[in-house]
C-alpha cells in the first residue's frame, strides 16, 4: 500500500490527536445508532476511500497563482473552522462541567494564550509536545478503560441493525474521523518523504479511531446507548463514576487532562496548518498573523 518502510511518529501522534480531539468529548451524540459498531464501520469503510483520495490529491500540483491562492484560502477557512470547534468544545466543556462559576471569556482567554504561545514556538516544538501529549492521553485512556472494568455492563450493547439511521451514524463518523483530521495534510513538507508522511498519517488515523472506539465503548458500557447519547460529555461523566479502591474515588481530573490536552494540541496544529496554507500570500509578520488566526478562531467559536 505504501512504499516507505519508515514512520514519522510525530505525524502518527498528530493525526491520532486530530481524530480524538472533539470526538472524544462529545461522542456518542443523541440519535447515534450502535455507536461502537459505527466507529469500527466508519474506519473500515472510510479507509480505502481516504487512501485513494490522498493518492489523487498528492498527484495534483497547482501552478496557477490565483487558483493556488483561492484553494489555499478555502482550505485555510476550513482548518480555522476546525480550530474554532476545538475552542468551542473547551469553552463548553469547562464552563458547563468543570469551572461552572468561571466566566467563559476567562476560560477562552487562557486557552487563547496557550494556543497562541504554542503556535509562536513553531511546528517542531508543537510536534514534540504532540508526541508527549499523545502518549500521556493514550496511556490514560487505556488505564481508565482497565479501571472501569468492574463498572461495565456488556448487556448495554445492542447488536447493530443495518438500517438507514445506522448508516447515517457511520457517515457522520467517517466525516469526524477522516475529514475533521485534514489539518494534518499541509504538514507534508516540500522535498520531504511523501510516502513516509502518508503512511504515518493513515496509521495515526487508525490509532485515533482505535482509541475513539475505546472511549465510545467506555461511555456506552457504563451508561448505555440512549443515556450516553443524551449526555453532553459522556466520556467525562463516565470517568467521574470510576474509582480505584477506596482511596482514589474521583478520577475526573484525568478526563479534564485528556480533553484539555487533545483540544490544545489540535488547536495549535490547526493554527500552524493555517499559517502554512496562507504562505502563498507572503505575509511577513508571523506573530501578527498567528495572533489574528487565534483571534478569528476565538470569535468563530462563539458562532458555533
Amino acid at each position, binding site marked *: 500500500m505504501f512504499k516507505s518502510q519508515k514512520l514519522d511518529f510525530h505525524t502518527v501522534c498528530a493525526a491520532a490527536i486530530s481524530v480524538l480531539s472533539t470526538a472524544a468529548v462529545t461522542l456518542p451524540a443523541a440519535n447515534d445508532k450502535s455507536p461502537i459498531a459505527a466507529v469500527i464501520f466508519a474506519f473500515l469503510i472510510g479507509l480505502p476511500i481516504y487512501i485513494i483520495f490522498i493518492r489523487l490529491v498528492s498527484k495534483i500540483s497547482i501552478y496557477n497563482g490565483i487558483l493556488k491562492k483561492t484553494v489555499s484560502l478555502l482550505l485555510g477557512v476550513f482548518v480555522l473552522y476546525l480550530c474554532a470547534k476545538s475552542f468551542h468544545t473547551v469553552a463548553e466543556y469547562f464552563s458547563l462541567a468543570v469551572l461552572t462559576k468561571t466566566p467563559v471569556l476567562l476560560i477562552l482567554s487562557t486557552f487563547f494564550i496557550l494556543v497562541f504561545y504554542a503556535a509562536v514556538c513553531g511546528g517542531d516544538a508543537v510536534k514534540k509536545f504532540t508526541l508527549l501529549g499523545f502518549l500521556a492521553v493514550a496511556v490514560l485512556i487505556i488505564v481508565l478503560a482497565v479501571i472501569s472494568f468492574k463498572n461495565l455492563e456488556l448487556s448495554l450493547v445492542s447488536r447493530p441493525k443495518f438500517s438507514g439511521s445506522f448508516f447515517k451514524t457511520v457517515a457522520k463518523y467517517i466525516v469526524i474521523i477522516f475529514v475533521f483530521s485534514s489539518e494534518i495534510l499541509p504538514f507534508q513538507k516540500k522535498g520531504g518523504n511523501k510516502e513516509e508522511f502518508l503512511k504515518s498519517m493513515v496509521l495515526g488515523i487508525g490509532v485515533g479511531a482505535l482509541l475513539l472506539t475505546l472511549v465510545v465503548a467506555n461511555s456506552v458500557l457504563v451508561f448505555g446507548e440512549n443515556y450516553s447519547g443524551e449526555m453532553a460529555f459522556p466520556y467525562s461523566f463516565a470517568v*467521574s463514576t470510576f*474509582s480505584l479502591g477506596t482511596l482514589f474515588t474521583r478520577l475526573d481530573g484525568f478526563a479534564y487532562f485528556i480533553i484539555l490536552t487533545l483540544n490544545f494540541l489540535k488547536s495549535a496544529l490547526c493554527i500552524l496548518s493555517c499559517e502554512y496554507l496562507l504562505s502563498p500570500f507572503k505575509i511577513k509578520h508571523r506573530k501578527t498573523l498567528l495572533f489574528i488566526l487565534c483571534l478569528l478562531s476565538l470569535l468563530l467559536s462563539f458562532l458555533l
Partner: protein
Amino acid sequence: MIEKILVFFISGIICIGLCGCVGYRETNGGLVVALIGIDREGDEIKISVQTVLPNTEGEVDCETVFAKAKNIEKAYKKLRQKTVKPLILEHCVGASLGNTLKKSDILTFLNFAEQKNDINLSLNFFCTENAYDFLLQSGEIYRQGGYDVIELIKNNDQAFQNKLFMIKRELYKNKGVKLPFLKLKDDEAVIDKTVILGES
C-alpha cells in the same frame, strides 16, 4: 523578553489552577452533606440533608436540616437560604427516598441530582419509610453518620444497581431497578426488603 513573560504567565496560571487555589472551599466554610432525603407531605416536597462535621474524637457531629416547598427546586432553594453556611454536596454519598413519594417525584429528583454538577453520578439511592426521620436518627446512631449507612449497603450480599447513573440507564431501557429499603431496628440500620422502582 515577551516570550519569557508569556512562559511565566502561563506557568503561573497552570500552577494556580492545578494546586486548587482557585474556587477552593474550606470544609469548615460550608456544611458537608453526607445524605440527602426527600419526602412528600401533602402537596409539598420536603427535602432534607444530613450534614457532618468531624470532631476531635474521630467521629462526626451530624445535623439534619429540612425545607418544604411545592417542588424540589424551590425546596432546595429554601434549604440553602435556611443554612447560614453554603452546602457542600461533593461528598454526598447517598439519597434516601421516602415512602410517600410519587413516581414522578422520584424521576424529577433523579434529574435534579443529575443536573447538579457537584453531585456525583455514583450517588447511592435507597428507600425508607420517612427520609427525614431516617437521616435524623442515623446521624445520632452512627459514628460516621450517613457514610456508615452507605457502607452497610455496599457490604450487603445482595447486588443493588442503586447508583444514580445505574438507575437512570435502567429507566432508559424501561426496566425496573432494585433498591434497598432501610429500616432502623434496635439502633441499627437493616435492609428490610427490596423495592422495585420504575418497572413499566
